[in-house]
């Protein structure tokens, strides 16, 4: 009896079991794929939706007239998180307040003429260049435009840069 069954199984097993193994493995792979799909679905729910196109004029923050800002000054706007810099030659540059290292907000140290980050003591010069690590790159900046004597800052696009160059500055005509 016992031996008979053994013989039978020996005959049948290889083919069936390989097919069964295959199907079982297939189910397992499908299960993993389903799990990955659910995970992807969940993670994509965390992401922000596509931004609606707003009227672009709403995103320009009017900082003031050109003459409101004296040369060689730094004016902070803590609500909109930028510093408006007017250089010695009269050019405008808007720097993000957010440190490029770990996202803390930097402070303007007027006597030293430096931006200092309180978190890891990174320091930046007036144009946002790194003068003390660990910050890996210069402070981000916002494009500035000057229309009808008004200084406007485009808060919709924050620009990353390695270091300062002249093209980032806007001059009043």
């Amino acid at each position, binding site marked *: 009896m016992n031996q008979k069954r053994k013989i039978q199984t020996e005959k049948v097993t290889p083919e069936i079991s390989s097919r069964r193994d295959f199907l079982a493995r297939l189910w397992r792979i499908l299960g993993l794929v389903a799990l990955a799909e659910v995970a992807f679905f969940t993670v994509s729910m*965390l992401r*922000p939706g596509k931004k609606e196109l707003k009227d672009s004029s709403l995103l320009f923050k009017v900082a003031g007239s050109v003459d409101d800002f004296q040369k060689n000054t730094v004016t902070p706007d803590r609500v909109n998180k930028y510093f408006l810099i007017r250089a010695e030659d009269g050019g405008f540059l808007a720097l993000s*307040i957010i440190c490029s290292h*770990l*996202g803390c907000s930097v402070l303007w140290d007027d006597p030293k003429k430096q931006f200092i980050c309180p978190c*890891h*003591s990174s320091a930046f010069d007036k144009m946002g260049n790194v003068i003390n690590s660990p910050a*890996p790159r210069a402070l981000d900046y916002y494009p500035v435009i000057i229309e009808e004597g008004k200084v406007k800052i485009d808060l919709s696009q924050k620009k990353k840069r390695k270091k300062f160059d002249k093209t980032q500055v806007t001059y009043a005509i």
Partner: protein
Amino acid sequence: MTDISRDTRQNKSWYNLILHLHPRRVKADTLRFTLTFGLGGMAVLLVVIQIFTGLLLKFHYVPSPEGAYNSVLNIQNNLLFGKLAHNIHHWSAIILLWVTFLHMLRVLFTGAFRKPRQATWIFGIILLILVVLSNFTGYLLPWDQLSYWAVTVCTSLLQYIPLIGGAAKETLLGGQEVGSATLSNFFNLHTGIIPLIMIILMGHHFWRIRKAGGVIVPESAEEVKMVDTQPNLVAREFVVALVLIAFLLIISILFDAPLRERANPSFSPNPAKAPWYFMGLQELLIHFHPFFAVVVFPLTIIIGSVWLPYIKLTDNNYGIWFLSPAGRRAGKFAVMAGFIFTIVFILISEFLPDPETVLHSIPSIITTGLIPFIIVVGTILLFMRYMQRRFNINRSEYIQTILIILVISYTVLSLTGILFRGEGMKLIWPWGI
């Protein structure tokens, strides 16, 4: 007569409930408290407490940047038992993290991750990561200066992961900066997704423990002595649970959960620190290039811990603390060495001139990344060669010694970050505090 029958009936239904978690009989040796310190059981109890107090807090918490801080104030000041519920939730979260971490160390240092417990170990690691994430997502919810900037600093760490870092940060934050979308994401992860995954994986973790024959004990030639679960194990668990609850209540009555002033996105406090369990990572970031601190080290640890149970070990060193007398001797030595090495490393890195400014032409990923990394790994390997010769340790004891060095190093880094870093993250001496 009737009294007795009722008593046994009640006992029986209680016993049936217990049998969902435990087998009918357990090995007598596993009951010894100092084998496990009841850490796994404590973790389960704390998760239950967290779910319960969390659900209570949810009645009053408002997950929006405008409402969050005030709703926490309301919970603390105007509600009967509100402050107690908040304090219990806060302290229990911290204790849970400690207990889970110590539970992992217990499993490591009794060799309980070995075959046939590989999957139990890996699911345990996932559960530990989930406990950390649970703590981290909860950290933001009070929306005070502490939580806002800790989360800002930590999520900014993600930026340093090549290729996917920026997208990962944006996904987690639901935008570019910590804001209302972030609070909404964190709230849902904290109160829904993470607990759900945790409960499912916990069930699986327990089932695997049971399948492996319960808690690990040394191999012996004699027949294993079995005892009834009820009352031998149940009574012991009950005592541990009561002591833990009493401890938690005392702490929660005496010490309030911290709440600073409301979050102000335009002023970061000085110094801005990550939550305490990530301070070791932040300290590492002061000494290493971000790519090494945020990617190489953590990835090595995670891959190593998944690979660990599949390393071929032929000895019978398991079921006792620190594996063997040789393992224990080497372990003691490694604790001291790890302690001294890490402190010396921090001091050298602090007082040596910044390699980035000295060797300006070479990229900083080499000067502050690769070179210190090679020095650290080289020191550990040289030290291990010495340990092998001195203590004549085998492979499992060798792995244990390395793990001890890693655990001690992370502890020292965390302590340095938490205690000895002041304004601008500058080092302060122990006598300067």
